[in-house]
C-alpha cells in the first residue's frame, strides 16, 4: 500500500499539552462557526429585546434614577452578566451532555493523544470564548444604545470570558452528575435564573433589607454584575464600598470552579 509506505517519521510523538488543548478548542470553534448564524442569532437578539423592552419600555415608567443612571444603563451590567452566564451554561450542560451521551464525542477524542483533562480544559476555554464573544456583541449593542459609559468597557470581553469560565465550571459539575437532560431544567430555573435576579440585574440589592442584601452579596452573581458595573458605568457607580473585591472574587471563582468542573468531567469519562 503506497500511502502507508510513505512513512517518514518512524515514531510519532504526542503533541505538547497546549497544542492538544487548542485542538479541542478548535473542534468546537469549527462546529460552531459551521452554523454560526443559526446558532448565534437567538442568543444575540434575546439581550437586545431585553434591553429594549425592559430598559426603554419599562424604564420609561420607572422614573427613578438608579445610582444616578437611567434604568437601562443600570441594567446593562446585569444583561452582560446574564448573557455570558447563559451562553456558557448552555454549552457546558446540554452541549456537553449530548456529546457525552449521544454522540460519544469524548470516546473518540480519548482514542487520540488527548487526555480527559485536555478535552475538558479545551471545552471550558471554548465556553469562556463564547462568553467573551457574546459579551462583546451585547456590549457593542449597549454601546450603540448609549448605555455603556466608560473607556473601561474595553474590558467587557475579558469579564465575559471570566464569567463564562466560572459558570462553565459550575455547569460541568452539574453535567457530571445528571442522569438525563431534563434535570438541567432544575439547574436553570431553580438556580441560575433566580441567581441573576437576586444579584442586581433589575434592582440594586443594597436597597434590600440588610439581611437579604447580605444573602445577595454571598451569591457569586453579585460579584459578576458588580464587576461588569465597573467596566460599563465606571467605579463611581458601584453599589458597595468594597466593590474592588468583586473582580478578584470573579477571577477566583473562574479558576476554582473551572478546575473543579474539569476534574469532575475528566473522571466522569474515564471510569
Amino acid at each position, binding site marked *: 500500500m503506497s500511502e*502507508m509506505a510513505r512513512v517518514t517519521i518512524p515514531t510519532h510523538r504526542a503533541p505538547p499539552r497546549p497544542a492538544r488543548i487548542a485542538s479541542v478548542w478548535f473542534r468546537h470553534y469549527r462546529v460552531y462557526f459551521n452554523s454560526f448564524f443559526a446558532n448565534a442569532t437567538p442568543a444575540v437578539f434575546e439581550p437586545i429585546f431585553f434591553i429594549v423592552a425592559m430598559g426603554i419600555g419599562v424604564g420609561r415608567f420607572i422614573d427613578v434614577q438608579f445610582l444616578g443612571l437611567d434604568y437601562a444603563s443600570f441594567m446593562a451590567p446585569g444583561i452582560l452578566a446574564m448573557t455570558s452566564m447563559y451562553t456558557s451554561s448552555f454549552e457546558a450542560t446540554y452541549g456537553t451532555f449530548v456529546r457525552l451521551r449521544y454522540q460519544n464525542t469524548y470516546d473518540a477524542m480519548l482514542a*487520540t*493523544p488527548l487526555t480527559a483533562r485536555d478535552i475538558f480544559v479545551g471545552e471550558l476555554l471554548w465556553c469562556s470564548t463564547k462568553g467573551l464573544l457574546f459579551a462583546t456583541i451585547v456590549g457593542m449593542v449597549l454601546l450603540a444604545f448609549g448605555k455603556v459609559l466608560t473607556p473601561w468597557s474595553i474590558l467587557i470581553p475579558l469579564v465575559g470570558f471570566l464569567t463564562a469560565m466560572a459558570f462553565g465550571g459550575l455547569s460541568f459539575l452539574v453535567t457530571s452528575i445528571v442522569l438525563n437532560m431534563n434535570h438541567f431544567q432544575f439547574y436553570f430555573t431553580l438556580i441560575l435564573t433566580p441567581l441573576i435576579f437576586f444579584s442586581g440585574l433589575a434592582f440594586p440589592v443594597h436597597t434590600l433589607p440588610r439581611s437579604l442584601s447580605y444573602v445577595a452579596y454571598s451569591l457569586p452573581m453579585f460579584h459578576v454584575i458588580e464587576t461588569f458595573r465597573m467596566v460599563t458605568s465606571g467605579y463611581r457607580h458601584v453599589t458597595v464600598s468594597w466593590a474592588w473585591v468583586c473582580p478578584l472574587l470573579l477571577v477566583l471563582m473562574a479558576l476554582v470552579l473551572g478546575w473543579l468542573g474539569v476534574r469532575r468531567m475528566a473522571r466522569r469519562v474515564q471510569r
Partner: protein
Amino acid sequence: MSESTSTATVRPESDTVIELERVSKSFGTLKAVDEVSLSIARGSCYALLGPNGAGKTTLTRIIGGVLPRNGGKVWVLGRDPWEEQSEVKARLGVVLQEDALDEDLDVARNLEIYGRFYWITGRRLKEKVHDLLTLVNLDGRERSQIMALSGGMKRRLVIARALLNEPEILLLDEPTTGLDPQVRQLIWSLMRKLMAGGMTILLTTHYMFEAAELADRVGIMDQGKLIAEGAPAQLIETYLPPFVLEFESSQATDLFLAEQAEPLLVERHGDRTLIFHESEQLLLDLVSRLQLSRTGLRGTTLEDVFLKLTGRGLHE
C-alpha cells in the same frame, strides 16, 4: 494522568508490542477483566473472542490507555499506556465499537479535526485526508453529512480516521459487526494490506470465521478471564477432535447415545446434538445407523471450540 511527569518504567521496545501481565479491572463488584495475561508480537494479528460482556472492550480500553486498571501490568510499545497516555495513544489507531463520528461535521472535516488532535495540520493533513478517503473508497463523499452515510460508509470512515496518524498498532473493536458481506470483505482486504505493511492488529469480533481467517492468534474470553489462547488451527486441535456430526436431537438419537458402551464426545446446543470424533469413518457409520443427513458431517471449526469453552447458554 501524569504522562509528562511519569517515572514509570519504560521497557526497551522489542518484538512484543503489547504485553499484559495479570491485568484486572472491576466495575463495583463486577470483575470485567480478571487476571488476563497475553502478549502480541509486532506485525501479528490477535483476535479476542468472547460472548457479550466477556470484557473484550474493557480490555481493549485498558490497552488503549483510556481506562485505568485495578491490578496487573501493561506495556504497549514498551510503555505503560495509562501512565503515558498521550505518548502511547499517539502511536495507536483505534476503531471503537460505536462509530463515534462527529455528526456536527461533514466527512472530510471529521478527519481534519481528528488529525489536529495528533497535531497533523496544513498540507500534510489535506493530503492525508484525501489519501485515506481514497483508500476506504469514500472519495467524492468529502462534503457528505455523517447522517447521510450508510452503516458501511461510517465504518470505513472510522477506519480511515484510525489510520490518520500512521499508527503502529490498530485496536479494532468489532470492526465488521452489523455490516453487509461486501463491506466486510472490503475491510478484511484492507486489514490484510495493512498487515502486509507490518501493522500489528488487536481485533475483537463475534465472527469466528473472521478470527480464523485473519488472526495469527486467538484468545477466548469469558466472564473477564482469558480461558484459551493459540493459533486458530492449534486451538481446534487442542480442544476438539477434527470431525463433527451435527443433527437435531430426537428420542431415537438420545436413546442411541445413552446405550453406547464406549462414551462419545457429545455436545448439545439447544435441540442440536454434536458428536466429535477423530475418525470421519466412525461418524459416517453413525450417519447411516441413525439415518441422518450426510450434510451434518463436517470439520470442526473455531466456533465449535468457542461454544464448548464458553458454554451453551446465553450469558446474560
